[in-house]
């Protein structure tokens, strides 16, 4: 068993362990990197609140010893909006997934970005619904097999970062579970940024996406990110029980790092809730 480093351990609810993530899941790597950033800047998390939706990624907030809220599917940004406006002094961090944040909660994501409310939103993108058993997500690459795309996905995925930038977010970054140092850098910058800051982090679901698409172990998936190899198995279409998909596609090589940074009034500033206007 790998022990958490002592600095991060003080931010954890060890009495809620064992955690529910599968062995090899990329979410644990990202969560660990989040904790390292938080441990560097906070002695305790009393001035912070975590708000999450529903899904494997959202469950990680329960393990943080802070004010944590595990809300409804797709709606964590709405709860976070109310909390931030009622308590602008709190640092509010939202954890969501690609199904939670881009499918059922897509409307809330673009509106939070448009409002430029001072929240930091981390979206764990693993291209699939893990918690409910590996169904198609709005981020699944075309051709990929899931439990609800048995003939391969026919749809184009969202580019979350570009969507959120177009909606008005003033800080947009993308990272990977493979390059945790990069994630730590952009997450730290996102926390410092006044306004809506959005970090999409590409992670992998070993249990469903990896298994269904014959992609190997968690380590295989992780290193595929690193080598920018196809994230869909090359001979997938030739599996005997499945009809060939029309066109084989791979998780595209996406730009990582800080993709957009600008400054305009936050919602709280515009409403006069911060900055001594009232």
């Amino acid at each position, binding site marked *: 068993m790998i022990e958490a480093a002592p600095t991060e351990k003080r931010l954890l609810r060890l009495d809620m362990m064992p955690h529910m993530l599968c062995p090899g899941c990329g979410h644990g790597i990202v969560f660990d990197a989040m904790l390292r950033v938080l441990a560097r800047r906070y002695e305790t998390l009393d001035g912070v609140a975590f708000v999450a939706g529903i899904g494997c990624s959202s469950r990680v907030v329960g393990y943080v010893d802070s004010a944590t809220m595990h809300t409804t599917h797709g709606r964590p940004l709405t709860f976070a909006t109310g909390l931030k406006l009622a308590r602008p002094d709190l640092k509010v961090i939202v954890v969501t997934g690609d199904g939670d944040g881009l499918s059922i909660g897509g409307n*809330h994501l673009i509106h939070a970005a448009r409002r430029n409310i001072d929240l930091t939103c981390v979206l764990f993108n693993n291209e699939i619904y893990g918690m409910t058993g590996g169904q198609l997500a709005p981020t699944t690459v075309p051709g990929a097999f899931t439990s609800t795309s048995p003939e391969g996905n026919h749809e184009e995925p969202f580019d979350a970062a570009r969507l959120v930038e177009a909606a008005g977010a003033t800080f947009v970054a993308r990272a990977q579970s493979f390059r945790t140092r990069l994630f730590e850098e952009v997450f730290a910058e996102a926390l410092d940024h006044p306004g809506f800051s959005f970090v999409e982090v590409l992670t992998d679901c070993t249990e469903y996406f990896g298994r269904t698409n014959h992609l190997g172990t968690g380590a295989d998936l992780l290193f595929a990110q690193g080598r920018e190899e196809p994230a869909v198995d090359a001979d997938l279409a030739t599996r005997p029980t499945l009809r060939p998909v029309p066109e084989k596609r791979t998780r595209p090589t996406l730009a990582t790092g800080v993709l957009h940074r600008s400054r305009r009034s936050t919602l709280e500033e515009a409403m006069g809730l911060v900055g001594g206007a009232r």
Partner: protein
Amino acid sequence: MSTLQLVQGNEACALGALAAGCRFFAGYPISPSSEIAEALARALPRRGGVFIQMEDEMASLGAVLGAAMGGARAMTATSGPGFTLMQEHLGYASLAEIPCVVVDVMRGGPSTGLPTSPSQGDVMQARWGSHGDRATVVVAPASVQEVHDLTGTAFALAERLRTPVVVLFDEVIGHMREGVTLAAPPAGSAGRPVPGEPPGPSFRSAYRPNAEGVAMVPDFGRGYRFHVTGLMHDERGYPTSDPATVAALLERLERKTDAALDALPPERYRLEDATVVLIAYGITARMARAAVDVLRERGIPAGLLRPRLLWPVPVAALEEAIAPAELVVAAEMNRGQWSLEVERVAGRQVPLAPYLKAGGSIISVEELVEHVLAATREGVLA
């Protein structure tokens, strides 16, 4: 200090909320409730509060619950279809024990239905609209004055019981104007229960109940570190699927709402010697009250029981009113909702002649009198 003003029902709701200390409103435009949002959009920022128009009704109640966890007395207002969209978050608020007030100005349904016509069609939605076994607290004002006052009561109950409280009225009450005495809220409307123990690294009792069965959940940002979830949870707030813990939690959440029954007993009108008992709430109760007077003039010993709290059902008060009755007439603007509760309580012992009207117009005194007279002629009253 009190002042008499001519006020619209929806405005009275906003004024009642402000008097009760509401300082956060999130909402989405919908007829016939929009004036509540409009009034609070003007008033709240001036009083140091927050108004925000959200992208939909799910977001509106989500924001309200977030603000409530931040310590604010928070409210939203909506109507029929919007109330439907809020059902998931009503369930969340019940289970996570987050105080809030949700106003539903009823219009004709189902679907888009009759957007600017009155109805009492959301009574069962208010009770059972969200999935699972859920205790609900629903108040039903019958006048503009009562909209003002019961909105305050709703806040007091929501905070004390840490549960969503629904204020249910209809388009006519929402849009009509009446003279209202705007009094300060009664003293002693205590705030929400908070833990007695100080915050600290070992705080693990956010969902420990007080004597009334209400979890003493601290507000966020007060030094307490704890978890809030829509999963079944133990007294620490940690998720659990232990059947005994879950059953006890559901039982406690139901039991705590009984306190609302004492806080808001039904109005009894000319019931002392009544053998023809009318039962009505909201706008319909005003016609029923006038009908009682007309029936009395014609020699029929009629009376009215007017619940101001629809859920939980005031069973004892209903039984008391029904016991001496030879005819019970429940009247409402729908195809039979709360009258089913009357039927449940009355059993098969008493003749029932409900008067139900759905279609977008209110029940008149004349038609109600005619209905009662016909029921007595038909020998329901021998």
